[in-house]
């Protein structure tokens, strides 16, 4: 692969890297920093990329590894951030905004690997194979991450409770906020979920 083609590919994949970075960090500024750091790492390691192999998976893996490495350094979890503000800037109806905020909060509660797999799968159309290549796991694991993330979100946002959630609550006595209560109140008959189907 020529150096020029390599750099063209880096530029072309930047939007997808942003999605992945935001899914992982939940913070716009941190996501921008993560993309930049990942690009720096990729440029430094460009000789190690084997032409003919999956460039996207290689690049996503670098970003993912960088995120994990940064997390270990900081020894702290990421936090919910300015995403709700960006959502509020969207010209959506009031009830839609509330539902979006619920979705955003629910996403933040998912494990990083599940959130990343779900967002890249749904938004970027990445296949289970691509997700597996990116994160260095088995295809079955990638599939399971997407499935569990989706099922958990549905359970939280529709007021159902997943088996693991119920078990966890029994053990810890933890009380979760009921996301569905807010969404239900915000979306009476013309709920955004119903509206989306019509």
């Amino acid at each position, binding site marked *: 692969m020529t*150096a020029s083609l*390599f*750099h063209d590919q880096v530029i072309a994949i930047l939007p997808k890297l942003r999605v992945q970075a935001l899914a992982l960090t939940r913070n716009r500024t941190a996501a921008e920093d993560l993309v930049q750091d990942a690009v720096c790492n990729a440029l430094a390691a460009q000789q190690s990329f084997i032409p003919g192999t999956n460039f996207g998976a290689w690049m996503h893996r670098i970003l993912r590894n960088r995120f994990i490495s940064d997390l270990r350094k900081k020894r702290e979890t990421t936090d919910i951030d300015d995403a709700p503000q960006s959502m509020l800037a969207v010209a959506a109806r009031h009830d839609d905004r509330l539902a979006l905020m619920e979705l955003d909060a629910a996403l933040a509660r998912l494990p990083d690997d599940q959130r990343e797999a779900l*967002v890249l799968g749904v938004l970027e159309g990445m296949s289970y194979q691509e997700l597996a290549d990116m994160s260095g796991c088995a295809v079955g694991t990638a599939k399971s991450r997407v499935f569990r993330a989706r099922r958990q979100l549905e359970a939280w946002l*529709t007021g159902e409770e997943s088996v693991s959630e119920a078990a966890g609550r029994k053990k810890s006595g933890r009380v979760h906020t009921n996301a569905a209560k807010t969404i239900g109140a915000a979306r009476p008959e013309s709920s955004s*979920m119903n509206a989306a*189907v019509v």
Partner: protein
Amino acid sequence: MGKSMDGAPPRKGRQSRDQAFDVWLKRGLHQLFDDVVNEPVPEELLKLIEEDRSKQD
């Protein structure tokens, strides 16, 4: 037995609810992420890439 209260087979109801949730989820994720994705790439980052390209050429 085997039917939900409104008379529809339960599996079908579950399926359509899942589909509705999938549509809603996709739309929600787009609303949360699209504005970030559509922002212009920072000049600094592009410069970094172009500088490296010049070095390699």
